[in-house]
């Protein structure tokens, strides 16, 4: 099977039952880190297709390979083995420059720790991808993106003058400003309190619903995961579950239930199925 890809034949872009194109198509991806003499297998063969307009959350215990997978999906890292087609493009064949262009045009990354530039106003943060993409009319587009995340009045604020939730919204505006094929978010609510987290979720949901932006994000919070359409569970570098959420919650409309009820509807058995030390 691998041989087939190495011949350079581009596979047909897959489509799901609704006729949507696969934005992400990965086949038997592995990722191995060499730490001195020790080989760390962060991913051990992941197959995954994500179709346009999907809103997917990736869950799994710490160390299960979620971030590793996100970096590969974001073209920030290359898999050790396996193939990755992003919008039909074989990412493994791209050089440094082309990867930069892919990251710029096709992907919007949101991080747990916001990763905003110091001493840089919100507006300029958002202009950054436009600048690297050589896009004209930057200020106008960046303003629009900031307005879309509800920060139209905070254009000239520095990160130090914004709350955590607001900073994350700037980061989201930066991720969407280039109108990418998808947004990848690695625990975007991880550093936020539940109210700011809900706000951020609302933005992701709105973007997904209204603009149809494919969104993949990592979360540890089952309650947050229930706001997405599909939940993928990773453990020890493999996908152990991949299910549709029957009725996704709408952010802000439902009160967070008690902790006991939280896991209801999100395969409790898989999440708690691992060994105890995985959760530490």
């Amino acid at each position, binding site marked *: 099977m691998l041989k087939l890809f190495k011949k350079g034949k581009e596979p047909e872009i897959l489509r799901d039952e609704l006729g949507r194109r696969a934005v992400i198509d990965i086949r038997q991806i592995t990722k191995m880190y060499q730490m001195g003499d020790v080989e760390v297998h962060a991913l051990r063969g992941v197959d995954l297709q994500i179709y346009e307009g999907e809103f997917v959350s990736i869950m799994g215990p710490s160390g299960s390979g979620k971030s590793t997978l996100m970096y590969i999906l974001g073209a*920030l890292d290359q898999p050790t083995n396996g193939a990755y087609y992003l919008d039909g493009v074989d990412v493994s064949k791209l050089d440094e420059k082309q990867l*930069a262009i892919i990251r710029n045009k096709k992907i919007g990354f949101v991080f747990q720790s916001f990763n905003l530039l110091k*001493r840089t106003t919100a507006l300029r943060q958002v202009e950054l991808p436009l600048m690297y993409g050589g896009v004209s009319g930057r200020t106008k587009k960046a303003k629009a993106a900031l307005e879309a995340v509800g920060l139209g009045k905070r254009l000239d604020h520095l990160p130090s003058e914004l709350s955590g939730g607001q900073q994350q919204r700037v980061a989201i505006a930066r991720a969407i400003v280039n109108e990418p094929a998808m947004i990848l978010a690695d625990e975007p609510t991880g550093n936020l309190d539940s109210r700011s987290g809900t706000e951020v979720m609302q933005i992701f949901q709105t973007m997904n619903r209204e603009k149809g932006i494919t969104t993949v994000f990592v979360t540890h919070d089952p309650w947050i995961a229930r706001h997405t359409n599909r939940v993928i569970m990773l453990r020890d570098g493999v996908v152990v579950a991949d299910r549709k959420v029957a009725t996704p919650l709408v952010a802000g409309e439902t009160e967070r239930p008690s902790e006991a009820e939280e896991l209801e509807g999100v395969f409790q058995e898989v999440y708690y199925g691992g060994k105890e030390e995985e959760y530490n």
Partner: protein
Amino acid sequence: MLILENIRVALSALNANKLRSFLTMVGITIGVTSVIILVSIGQALESFVIAGFENIGSNLVVVFAPLVQSNSKLLTLNEVEALSDVFRVPDALYVMPQDNMNRQVVANGVEYVSRIEGVDVLYPTIFNRDVIGGRFFTQNEVDGLARVAVLGQKMVDRFFSDTFPIGQTIRISGVRFTVIGVLSTEGGEGLTTFLGGDADDIIVVPITTAQTRLSGERVITGERPVDFVAIQARSSDTVKSLADQIRQTLREERNISFRDEDNFQVVTQSAVLDTLNQITALLTLFLSLLAGISLIVGGIGIMNIMLVTVTERTREIGLRKATGAKNSDILLQFLTESMTLSLIGGGIGISIALTLAFLVTTFVPDLDVSVKFTTILLVVAISMSIGVFFGAYPANRASKLNPIEALRYE
């Protein structure tokens, strides 16, 4: 557009670490200042010396007995006679002895220790001096030990600011002299100025009078010595042969055996020029070394601080790459930053140098230290090259960072 953005980012980064940035620039600033001063003073000295030779009259050979030479013997008027012998020194056009001294002068109620130059009638010809008032003394007056004096401009200003000087009486060491003429200003730029003080601040009298009335000096034979003899060659081609003829004649006069060294010195303009050039070259070498070292030290400082900056901003680099920055974008960003650093350092250096040049010119008017535009272009180019050269390694390191590791960096 990206360039402007890079400059903006660089300025705000430098601004965020003001003290650090400033300290980093000091090396470049000192280097640039010394380069400008070096080049400008070199140019000023050169034009100063050239102007001196243009003024002094050309093809001149000077014979004297250097004080620093232990065996040296003062020249006498008899020897001047010998040097004036057209058969022995055929290439000499004019031969003139000169005897200088400092004497108390009283005139018009003013008292001043003045520089007296005892010369003969050839003085205006040989040294290119004009007499703008009255006249110079004649051969008759020289032969007759006449007590006549010709004043330089500054002497006129000092003694006769309110009276017409010609015809006035002055007392030099108590001896009465009559002022018969006034010299034009020499401008204070001539070689005579350079070698022997201000050529406008002199009183010129016949050498014979100076020797008999003002100086009791005698050599062992009882003759009266002179300070030096100025001899003008017939043309620039014969300067060298003239110098040889002079040496030959003096060695014969003094019975110096072929084994012994000269006990006098024959100096030609080109020799003086050579010496001056040597001094200038030495000075230039020294200052260049200083400038070079501080520029290199400054460059290393920039490299050091850029390496620190790259490490500090690892996450920023990762983030920039995640949003689509190419390696070349990162490279350019950090090169811009190191160049901004070195250019600002250079800019400060330029302003310091301009101030210094202005001060030197104000306090030493003879030395016109003006900074040429080409010099400024030169140091701007040097600063930029230092920024590029020493910023290249850190910038390259930044651009090659793996985005993931950069983003993970704590």
